[in-house]
């Protein structure tokens, strides 16, 4: 191949020269070029190297089916590996480099693998590298080299500087593909008033019409249809947009390449935009891809899909070579040959069929195309590019019947028929049907009410047929949409010379073999993955006969081109070998995406901080302003500790916890889940969902409650207050708020539909602050007005309403820390106002804020369970909470909690551990009896640990087998991972003030 730019023609702007580079070399590029056409116009023959044998590869096609021309596009942080040159629009400043080659693509050392290719036969890696040694080391040693050799492009380890956008769109009709059929469909539906989205992956509308000569009749038609569509505000036209996936419920995924045709995105535009389209109807008019013929050295630069040579000539004004051989088995190549001859090439049409129809023969002869019928190319000659084709007479199966003759040429065009692009259809509906008449897989349209297919995709052949199929499918969607077609006439269907299609009289040959049924040299089925005909043959011999086995064993069709040109060839060869028909041999299911999609595009804005919502307390800013170190608690951020000076976490929490026990502290507990339980049956609902009884709770009181899952394990705990006769205020742990609400909703909507109750999340509506410490009451008596809170008037588990700083609040008396404690509930909007008022009022009492770490220390000292203990596998008894369970009523989990394993007395139960020595234990350590081997699952595990300021000791909570009966026993506490082995004594988990004198003060 020695491509060059023709002096005239092409849909390019010859006045605009673009700076486009490949491996540092400047290319001759104009606006309207693709990178591939610019490469070809500049005579770049070798643009890539093969995956396995590193053979020289040139441009093979002019579209998404390209197996060869993959490059690195742009550089540095915008580097994009595996960019397909045939669909990359040329832009000023384009930098591209070759990939998978060293030192460069022209002279690649990796090509030596070609010499040992017989030993790299299909599946050789399954049969070797096993080694005589045991274990995996030998293989992993070899694998290191394989991994380095594999892969194609290079990924970067730096952040992507570009942004991506997402649109949720709705329409009546989505038309995919703006070729003749798609344009007709869009115009028909658009004129009828349907809300249409028309999607085209190319940067121009027209599809294969763009490959027709410029200013011909087809251009006239195209201009008129485009103008007609432009007049319709109800038709949204998306060019540079690929419909990559079809999903259930008529959802389609599109990627709009907003800025990929620019050096970098401009004016704050995203690089790409992901459209998630929900449509009522779809017309798929995705066209067809030309199928190759397989012969020796069919991967040499200069071997191309026949129609793509036509595309380069007519659309880009680039002739791939001077002497062109077109090897075909169908009529579609006649037009190609004639137009190439008209463009000035010396063209020989080698037709596999014994006779070319007279009309065609006459036209070909008139155009000066030499025709050889009953013949085919059996082998391309040349080392780095095609220099000749070896042509043999063949029988109807593609086997040589005579000697090969050499014909010098620089390009060999191939056409083995066409494959409709059934990908989107198949993603959704599975396997397509084989249509014998056109020798191709087509959509099986029966019973698909919302998806229609049109044009070449259903093997419509002539331009007239394609246009009509677009119109008629659009009309049938209009019926479903209850719209009437407009009477306005469409532009007259243009006449095109040699508009034959491929189906009529198509020959059924796929691969050209010699008289012994052997291909000559390396004959590739899948050019991108270097899968040869002989590989298919070997796979067959070894029993990998199902298409799925064939695909996986040979890797045919699994490269980035997803086998667009190769799948059917592999199938056909397998059918031939097994003596079955192609439909009997089967086909694989196509998977999304149609062409590879940038991960960033589907992520859109959902990255960095926006990956997941962050929940903040309404007092969050105060914590930050006052030096709190924040920590993650599920989706929430909570103050972990408030270091003073150079304090580290340990110093800070010890100081904070000590302060609470000595004076008074305040902690923001707004993250607690809060649920309004309202309705006449609210008490009954609580009675069912909690293990304890709720019927006796009076207005003005609150109660601690425990919930089980249906399977009898503890799910959550918290306090619920009775605000009114039918009005309860439930609190849950921070972690389980959503779970409790979901379970409540689920039960109320399924099992308990008789209960008149509403549950509503009010977590965000209420802030909550716990004030704990011996001076808590004194402080609140000062700060709160409108309520009496003396010990007698407001004992534990009661609440009052009053005002703090002119804001109405509710004050619950309840203790988690074990100190005299209250919780202040404030509407969120007034949270900071009340919080700062409390801090101010607290100055006189030395009130200090404390964080979650100190709160943890305080609750561990009290033996209160939290997340580490309520870990989804513990029972009421395990946690010492069995006393709460009512025996008088059923509740969620009451039946299954009695299962033998849950009731087993040998289970692990909650205990305290008094650690011996100065070193504290770490949560997750295992517990073993003294003098027992430290192996297996242990006799228990440490759930929570702290250095107890109140006791001046390292303590822990743990779950230990039969723990309740082992008080006073010494055990080993072992952290194998961090080489720590401690001794501890099992004690009651209620380390501090077990009688509760302090909280009842």
């Amino acid at each position, binding site marked *: 191949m020695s491509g060059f730019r023709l002096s005239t023609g092409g849909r390019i702007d010859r006045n605009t020269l673009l700076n486009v580079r490949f491996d540092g070399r400047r290319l001759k590029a104009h606006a309207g070029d693709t990178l591939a056409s610019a490469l070809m116009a500049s005579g770049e023959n070798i643009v890539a190297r093969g995956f396995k044998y590193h053979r020289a590869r040139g441009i093979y096609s002019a579209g998404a089916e390209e197996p060869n021309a993959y490059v690195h596009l742009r550089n540095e942080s915008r580097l994009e590996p595996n960019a397909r040159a045939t669909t990359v629009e040329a832009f000023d400043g384009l930098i591209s480099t070759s990939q998978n080659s060293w030192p460069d693509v022209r002279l690649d050392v990796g090509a030596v693998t070609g010499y040992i290719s017989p030993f790299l036969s299909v599946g050789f890696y399954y*049969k070797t590298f096993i080694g005589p040694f045991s274990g995996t080391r030998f293989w*992993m040693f070899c694998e290191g080299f394989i991994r380095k050799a594999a*892969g194609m*492009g290079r990924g970067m380890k730096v952040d992507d500087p570009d942004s991506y956008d997402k649109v949720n769109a709705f329409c009546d009709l989505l038309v995919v593909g703006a070729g003749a059929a798609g344009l007709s469909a869009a115009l028909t539906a658009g004129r009828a008033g349907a809300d249409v989205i028309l999607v085209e992956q190319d940067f121009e509308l027209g599809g294969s019409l763009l490959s027709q000569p410029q200013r011909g009749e087809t251009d006239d038609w195209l201009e008129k249809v485009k103008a007609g569509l432009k007049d319709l505000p109800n038709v949204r036209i998306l060019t540079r947009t690929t419909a990559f996936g079809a999903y259930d419920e008529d959802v389609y995924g599109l990627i709009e390449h907003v800025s990929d045709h620019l050096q970098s995105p401009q004016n704050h535009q995203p690089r790409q935009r992901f459209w998630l389209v929900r449509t009522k109807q779809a017309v798929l008019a995705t066209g067809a891809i030309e199928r190759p013929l397989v012969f020796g050295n069919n991967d040499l630069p200069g071997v191309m899909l026949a129609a793509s040579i036509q595309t380069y000539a007519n659309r880009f004004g680039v002739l791939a070579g001077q002497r062109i051989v077109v090897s075909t088995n169908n009529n579609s190549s006649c037009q190609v040959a004639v137009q190439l001859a008209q463009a000035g090439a010396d063209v020989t049409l080698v037709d596999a069929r014994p006779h070319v129809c007279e009309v065609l023969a006459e036209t070909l002869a008139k155009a000066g195309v030499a025709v050889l019928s009953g013949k085919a190319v059996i082998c391309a000659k040349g080392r780095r590019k095609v220099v000749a084709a070896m042509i043999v007479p063949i029988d109807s199966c593609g086997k040589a019947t005579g000697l090969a003759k050499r014909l010098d040429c620089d390009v060999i065009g191939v056409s083995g028929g066409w494959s409709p692009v059934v990908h989107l259809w198949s993603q959704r509906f599975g396997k397509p049907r084989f249509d014998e008449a056109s020798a191709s897989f087509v959509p099986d349209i029966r019973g698909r009410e919302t998806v229609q297919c049109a044009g070449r995709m259903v093997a419509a052949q002539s331009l007239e047929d394609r246009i009509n199929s677009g119109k008629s499918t659009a009309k049938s969607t209009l019926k479903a949409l209850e719209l009437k077609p407009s009477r306005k006439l469409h532009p007259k269907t243009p006449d095109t010379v040699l508009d034959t299609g491929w189906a009529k009289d198509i020959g059924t040959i796929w691969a050209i073999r010699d008289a012994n049924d052997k291909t000559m040299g390396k004959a590739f089925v899948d050019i991108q993955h270097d899968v040869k005909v002989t590989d298919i043959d070997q796979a067959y011999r070894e029993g990998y006969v199902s298409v799925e086995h064939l695909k996986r064993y040979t890797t045919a069709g699994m490269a980035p081109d997803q086998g667009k040109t190769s799948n059917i060839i592999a199938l056909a060869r397998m059918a031939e070998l097994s003596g079955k028909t192609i439909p009997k041999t089967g086909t694989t299911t196509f998977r999304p995406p149609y062409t590879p999609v940038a*991960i960033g595009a589907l992520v859109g804005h959902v990255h960095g901080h926006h990956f997941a919502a962050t929940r903040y307390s309404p007092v969050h800013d105060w914590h930050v302003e006052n030096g709190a170190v924040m920590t993650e608690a599920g989706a929430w951020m909570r103050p972990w500790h408030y270091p003073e000076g150079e304090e580290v976490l340990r110093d800070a929490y010890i100081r904070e916890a000590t302060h609470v026990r000595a004076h008074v502290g305040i902690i923001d507990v707004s993250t607690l889940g809060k649920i309004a339980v309202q309705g006449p049956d609210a008490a009954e609902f609580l009675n069912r969902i909690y293990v304890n009884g709720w019927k006796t709770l009076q207005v003005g009181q609150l109660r601690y409650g425990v919930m089980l899952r249906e*399977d009898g394990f503890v*799910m959550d705990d918290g306090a619920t207050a009775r605000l009114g006769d039918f009005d309860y205020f439930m609190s849950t742990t921070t972690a389980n708020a959503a779970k409790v609400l979901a379970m409540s909703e689920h039960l109320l909507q399924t099992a308990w539909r008789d209960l008149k109750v509403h549950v509503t999340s009010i977590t965000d509506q209420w802030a909550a602050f716990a004030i704990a410490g011996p001076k808590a009451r004194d402080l609140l008596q000062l700060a709160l007005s409108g309520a009496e809170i003396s010990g007698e008037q407001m004992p534990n588990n009661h609440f009052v309403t009053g005002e703090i700083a002119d804001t109405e609040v509710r004050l619950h008396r309840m203790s988690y820390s074990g100190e005299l404690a209250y919780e202040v509930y404030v509407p969120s909007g007034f949270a900071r106002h009340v919080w700062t008022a409390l801090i101010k009022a607290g100055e006189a009492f030395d009130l200090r804020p404390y964080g979650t770490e100190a709160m943890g220390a305080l609750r561990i000292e009290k033996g209160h369970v939290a997340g580490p203990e309520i870990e989804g596998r513990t029972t009421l008894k395990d946690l010492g909470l069995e006393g709460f369970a009512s025996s008088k009523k059923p509740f969620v989990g009451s039946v299954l909690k009695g299962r033998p394993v849950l009731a087993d007395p040998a289970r692990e139960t909650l205990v305290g551990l008094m650690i011996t020595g100065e070193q504290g234990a770490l949560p997750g350590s295992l517990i073993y009896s003294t003098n027992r081997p430290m192996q297996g699952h242990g006799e228990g595990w440490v759930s929570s640990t702290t250095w107890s300021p109140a006791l001046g000791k390292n303590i822990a909570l743990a779950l230990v087998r039969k723990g309740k009966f082992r008080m006073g026993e010494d055990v080993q506490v072992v952290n194998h991972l961090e080489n720590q082995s401690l001794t501890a004594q099992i004690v009651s988990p209620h380390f501090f003030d077990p009688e509760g004198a302090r909280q009842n003060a």
Partner: protein
Amino acid sequence: MSHYSAFSVFRNALTGNRHWQRAWRDPHPKPSYDVVIVGAGGHGLATAYYLAKEHGIHNVAVIEKGWLGGGNTGRNTTIVRSNYMMPGNTMFYERSMKLWENLSQDLNFNVMISQRGQYNLCHSPAQMDAARRRGNVMRANGIDADLFDRVEVRQRLPYLDYSPSARFPIHGAIFQSRAGTARHDAVAWGYARAADRQGVDIIQQCEVTGYIWDDGNIVGVETTRGPIRAGKVGLAVAGHTGHLADMAGLRLPIETHVLQAYVTEPLKPLVDTVISFGAAHFYVSQSDKGGLVLGGDLDGYNSYAQRGGLPMVEHTLASAKALMPSVSRLKLLRHWAGVMDMSMDGSPFITKTPIDGLYLNGGWCYGGFKATPASGWCFAWTIAKEQPHQDNAEFTLSRFERGYQIDEKGAGPQPNAH
């Protein structure tokens, strides 16, 4: 059948690779077998192989509706690990790991077991504590585990997001160095070939349509290729377990769900290990061919269709970018789905059933691949000896009745855990 080796590859190359023999035969079903295994995925084939190899039961057929290895064996993300904490799981998965380590040699087929290690990232102190407990159980059971802090993780995996804009900061990770990946198709093929060499008949394109009963016992299967009598029938049909059990009148604590998997275009080496994101359900590794293999959570609805929807695609890829921002410009090549037999505690069944003659291997959730060798080994044991091996003793159907849920997540009875 020829033995595979570098020498056999060399010798065959000299004769144009024209003398390779079939990897497995394509036999017609015999009228009866000692054991019929339904499902020629990894688990079914492994069961047949170990029945023959370990227990001398060679008169075995594995029957398959489609093509061997065409279900979840050929659709998973190929991760192999043994980091299980719950009694009942720990030693079972470790048995699997040990079998993996010499599986290529055992099968004379390179299943490409690659112990590249696996990191489970932790994103809060609480997750670090939970990881420590898991790691300690592993160590105490002779399984390798390490706990790394943020600094160490950053040194080892510098390309993850440690910036202040990471939504979930990395606090550390638990690491199993013996974990890694295997070539999933090769596992099915390797077991098929090895079982075939032991005389096992692998009968593809043969769908079970019902059971042959005798006095309340199952004594064979009705198939699309005729009746096949069997001394014992074992089910190893993953997402179709509920369906096959229903034919026998059994209702199981299993739901079938869709799980998607994803692969990028092939790239030069980028990720040299397996990484699990602890803040979302997501993991990534890189195949030998160069594609990044991504996995995420269930789509969340019951289905037998092997395709999923866009919401989970978006979420999984968002997790990928959250973990490793540089994947943004890399391209997703393909995504597909398999149907998972989700049990109600995330753990499997390898057990006799209440029906004499019927044995069950299922409930693998989305974690069956790593279990393949031990699953086959223990199922073969259970079938041959009429009682479970101690490593699968707890994988019974009655465990829910007894309250012995093997719940690694502590998530409770939901069909979305493993």
